[in-house]
């Protein structure tokens, strides 16, 4: 059996495994026991006084009442002092060592009172001797086994001392008069036997008490450790979960990185955290997200992935713990770390499908801050973070690629425009007869050619529109209040002639109120949306049909409906409707020409203005496009 039962050992052991400032269970028990003993002692002191009085006045015994009253009062007085000290300790939230000191003083004073009490109530003949057993058991609960046995031996020595001194009349025997008919303090054999059994009882009590206490303490330590492990595990799981949610809730690279460093620092309960990513050369590790470090420290110098020992180690896939920044041979900038107040750090690789692409690092101010458990936890955070960072990196790459592609389309369509435009002009010159008379057949061919080039022009314009929208993200953000009603009216008016030619009735349904239905968008964009939808409706509606436009407001949204009695959209074409260059078979059949970009542009523009579009259609019956936008409630001037 090891001497684990000292509360100071226990508290030291427990507090080394945890860093929260609240008391452990064992310490809490010591604190409450001190209070409890003080509480009991009021009764003990009062009990001495009361017992003396009763012995004297009820049973008519003849005790040394004065000293006994003084002892009782003395107990009350020192207990009052203990009480005041205990209250101060509690108020100041004193460390458990102070409580332990207080407990020791209580035992010492109690034993002095005890031995005086025995001496003044008959020495070896005193019935109070049995009380010593209580004290020995109480001491065995508080102190280590050896100390408890030492206390027991002291008690035996004190009692034996009194017996010895009284036996040889060195001190005065003070019996309680009328209690014993024949005193035995002079009976050597009896006293020896008495002392032997007292000693035996005292030592066994101390041994049993401390043994039982020991076992209970050990169990308690186990329970405390387990519950603290559980507590830590719970905190870490929560932290990991928070991390996962924080970093995967966005695809924006900057946000992912910043969230990762801040949540990691919190989860690890450390001062700082950084992410460094390999740059495009694959050599330099650039800090891309920082939490809790100074600018000076960050600018300490470059980190070369090929020569920096720590970086090499981590990028090879290992989690590296540096227990002391000043002692580690791996560190390139130990002096800077010292100035920053950083003493230990832990680094884990951020790994993607093509190997490590960066380093996640946590920094602590304490030496040897990271345990094996911390290491595993940190590795888990890094693994989780890697996925989020890689996703965000991929997303960024795709976005850039999409922009590059759009820019490319923009450039080539732009380049295509001028030759097409010139060809158109040339053909018009021929058709108009400015280059001499052409035969009817030649005229037919020229007109066909002009028509085809015109279509090409339109295709190029549409493509350019689409690519411009995607390439020019800044332009998307420039919005202003636009009146839907006047824009729609203007668009419908534009189609009056072509509808009339096809004998299509154009109907416009607006509420009675002069409401404009204002949304935040660009006027050209809204015009384009309505233009394409109305043009389609007229294009794919046979003669004698009807096209109707309607605006209404529902809740805080403007709902625009453009419906026709046209050829409709086949069920199987519905999923492809907004795809670039897609045209439904019945649409191709009815109208040879069409770029298949009109609805793509519509959808793209509506997305830009955070609107929605829905389609209802039945083949040979008609189609209904329903567009909705959030109504603008502000007061900026409206462009019409």
């Amino acid at each position, binding site marked *: 059996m090891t001497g684990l039962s000292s509360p100071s050992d226990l508290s030291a052991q427990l507090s080394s495994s945890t860093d929260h400032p609240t008391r452990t269970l064992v310490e809490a028990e010591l604190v409450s026991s001190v209070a409890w003993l003080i509480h009991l002692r009021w009764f003990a002191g009062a009990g001495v006084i009361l017992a003396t009085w009763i012995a004297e006045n009820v049973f008519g015994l003849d005790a040394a009442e004065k000293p006994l009253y003084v002892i009782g009062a003395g107990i009350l007085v020192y207990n009052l002092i203990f009480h005041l000290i205990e209250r101060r300790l509690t108020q100041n939230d004193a460390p458990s060592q102070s409580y332990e000191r207080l407990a020791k003083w209580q035992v010492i004073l109690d034993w002095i009172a005890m031995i005086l009490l025995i001496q003044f109530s008959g020495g070896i003949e005193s019935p109070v001797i049995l009380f010593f057993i209580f004290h020995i058991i109480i001491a065995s609960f508080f102190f280590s086994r050896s100390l408890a046995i030492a206390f027991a031996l002291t008690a035996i020595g004190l009692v034996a001392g009194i017996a010895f001194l009284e036996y040889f009349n060195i001190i005065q025997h003070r019996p309680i008069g009328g209690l014993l008919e024949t005193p035995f303090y002079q009976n050597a054999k009896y006293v020896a036997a008495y002392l032997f059994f007292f000693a035996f009882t005292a030592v066994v009590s101390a041994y049993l008490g401390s043994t039982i206490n020991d076992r209970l303490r050990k169990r308690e330590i186990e329970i405390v450790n387990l519950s603290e492990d559980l507590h830590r595990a719970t905190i870490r799981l929560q932290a990991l979960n928070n991390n996962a949610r924080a970093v995967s809730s966005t695809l924006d690279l900057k946000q992912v990185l910043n969230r990762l460093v801040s949540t990691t620092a919190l989860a690890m309960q450390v001062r700082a955290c950084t992410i460094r990513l390999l740059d495009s050369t694959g050599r330099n590790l650039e800090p891309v997200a920082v939490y809790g470090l100074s600018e000076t420290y960050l600018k300490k110098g470059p980190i070369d992935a090929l020569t920096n020992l720590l970086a090499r180690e981590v990028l090879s896939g290992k989690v590296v713990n540096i227990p002391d920044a000043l002692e580690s041979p791996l560190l390139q900038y130990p002096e800077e770390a010292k100035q920053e107040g950083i003493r230990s750090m832990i680094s884990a690789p951020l790994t993607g499908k093509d190997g490590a692409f960066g380093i996640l690092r946590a920094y602590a101010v304490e030496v040897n801050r990271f345990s094996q458990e911390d290491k595993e936890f940190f590795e888990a955070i890094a693994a989780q973070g890697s996925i989020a960072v890689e996703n965000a990196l991929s997303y960024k790459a795709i976005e850039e690629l999409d922009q590059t592609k759009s820019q490319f389309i923009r450039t080539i369509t732009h380049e295509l425009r001028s030759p097409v435009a010139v060809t158109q002009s040339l053909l018009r010159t021929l058709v108009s007869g400015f280059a001499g008379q052409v035969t009817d*057949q030649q005229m*037919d*061919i020229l007109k*066909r*050619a002009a028509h*085809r080039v015109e279509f090409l022009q339109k295709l190029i314009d549409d493509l350019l529109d689409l690519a411009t929208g995607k390439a020019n993200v800044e332009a998307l953000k420039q919005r202003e209040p636009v009146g839907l009603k006047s824009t729609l009216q203007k668009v419908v008016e534009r189609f009056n002639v072509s509808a009339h030619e096809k004998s299509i009735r154009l109907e416009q349904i607006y509420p009675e109120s002069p409401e404009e239905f204002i949304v935040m968008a660009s006027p050209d964009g809204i015009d384009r949306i309505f233009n394409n939808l109305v043009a389609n409706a007229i294009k794919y509606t046979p003669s004698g049909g009807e096209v109707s436009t309607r605006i209404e407001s529902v809740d805080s949204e403007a709902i625009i409906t453009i419906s026709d009695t046209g050829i409709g959209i086949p069920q199987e074409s519905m999923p492809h409707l907004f795809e670039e260059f897609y045209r439904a*078979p019945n649409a*191709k059949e009815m109208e040879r020409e069409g770029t298949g970009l009109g609805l793509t542009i519509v959808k793209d523009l509506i997305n830009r203005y955070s609107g929605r579009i829905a389609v209802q259609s039945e083949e040979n019956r008609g189609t209904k496009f329903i567009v909705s936008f959030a109504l603008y409630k502000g007061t900026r001037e409206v462009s019409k």
Partner: protein
Amino acid sequence: MNQKKILLVDDDPDQRLTLRLPLESAGYEIFEAKSSKEGLEMVEKIRPDLIVLDVMMDTATAGFQLALELHSPDPNSAYKEFSKVPIIMLTAIHSTTPLRFKPDEDYLPVQTFIEKPVDPDVLLTKVRDFIGE
């Protein structure tokens, strides 16, 4: 000697015109069909000496299917008697699909390809190679 008959199968009227004019001026009799279906009907009706066929019509491979049907090696084929009618296939498919096609007796029974845009001289040379003046 009878005028040789050529059937043009193409859904684009402008494209048909650009084929018709040079061929007519070279003395061939020209018939037109706007789809594969119409093409097959016309084959039976007019019994052409040669067919000029567009690949992409209502579907991206409609022309191929028509060619396969006409030149089917199946002895019970409905178009058995036309299996020797030469087919010139018009294609721009090289530029719009990643597929590569070559005349292949087993796979694609057409005699030759002409790339769009069609050069009238190339067209006439190829037609003369197959059916003469």
